[in-house]
């Protein structure tokens, strides 16, 4: 968790070094902002205020400016995601082939709406605007893997498997 994102503690954290590297590669110019945010999200999974503060201090960018940028782009997540993510494509081809029905099905069976995470933090549901797999509509991305011609049955299979996983202990880093 990027909770103690001060410069001192970050030095100990390899992930902050990656963020730092992106800024350095871009000469700490303000235009490195979006690239840097990509790195933050890439290594931490999401972008929180502490991370924004860290980046704002390093790049000549004001707090409101960086907050404006991060909330403008829908790709950036400011909340931690569940252990697994399912992104349903809502592009035109997928819409025509029933992506709405898939989302309704997930809501009906798992009480999960776009942008929400199950209470056990295992599964997050997202929607994306066209992943360019229109030929395979309706498409969804399960933990980064694109799946075409998705049916409710397939959705249930994937989600049920995820939800049935053992709870993780306190083994994770924090």
């Amino acid at each position: 968790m990027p909770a103690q994102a001060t410069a001192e503690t970050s030095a100990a954290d390899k992930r902050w070094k990656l963020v730092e590297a992106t800024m350095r590669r871009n000469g700490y110019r303000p235009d490195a902002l979006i690239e840097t945010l990509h790195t933050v999200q890439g290594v931490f999974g999401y972008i929180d205020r502490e991370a924004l503060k860290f980046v704002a201090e390093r790049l000549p960018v004001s707090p409101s400016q960086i907050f404006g940028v991060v909330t403008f782009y829908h790709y950036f997540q400011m909340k931690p995601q569940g252990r697994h993510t399912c992104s349903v494509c809502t592009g035109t081809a997928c819409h025509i082939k029933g992506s709405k029905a898939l989302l309704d099905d997930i809501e009906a069976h798992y009480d999960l709406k776009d942008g929400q995470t199950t209470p056990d933090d295992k599964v997050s549901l997202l929607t994306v605007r066209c992943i360019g797999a229109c030929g395979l509509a309706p498409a969804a991305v399960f933990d980064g893997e694109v799946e075409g011609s998705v049916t409710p049955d397939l959705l249930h299979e994937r989600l049920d498997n995820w939800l049935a996983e053992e709870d993780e202990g306190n083994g994770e880093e924090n």
Partner: protein
Amino acid sequence: MAVVRSRIKTLKIDGQDVGAHEDETILEVARENGIMIPTLCQLDGLSLVGACRLCLVEVVGWRNLVPACTTYVEEGMEVITNSERLQKYRRMIIELLFAEGNHVCAVCVSNGNCELQWKAQKLGMDHVRFTNQNPDRRVDMTHEHFVVDANRCILCTRCVRVCDEIEGAHTWDIFGRGENSTIISDFNLPWGESPTCSSCGKCVNVCPTGALVEKGKAAGEMIKRTEFLAYLTKMREVKK
């Protein structure tokens, strides 16, 4: 000191022959000649964004309407600033502004001193045909001297620009996008806790509506002053 100015262009605005320097915009030339084109986001002394669309004008022979504030004059251009079509569009734009926010004038401290209200009257908006969107945006009274009511904000970004360009603090910016856009200070934290705000009050004075106001005013008491902008601009020119 002899100032070398750019070349002179001649053009027609609403049938009137006018001369202008090539580095002037249609809006500037129109104003010099007493032709008033409505504006909201534009303010002398701040950069131009062309966002409010009120100053759109027709240029004969051009396919698209153009914002007078950001379009430079050209030789021989014929500008129409107040056709029936433009009047209709401007009225609709004001209607949309009213529909997206809480612009209940009766209980606004800027009532009677509000640019949006003036425009609504001047452009002949006698009612709003669009359903109000009833926004639920931030009302922040944490600042010692000022109040921000984002529900009365029309997103002209004058506050963002004056804070960045004149004061140099960049306390304000826009959060989110589309209909969820709203003004924020710093990391969308209470204004009163802002580490960047110098409490100079420039944003309050340039705000055209009752979104940014001084504390302790009753309805109709808040009067905005923008003369300081021209003054600061002039003084900075001198120092250059």
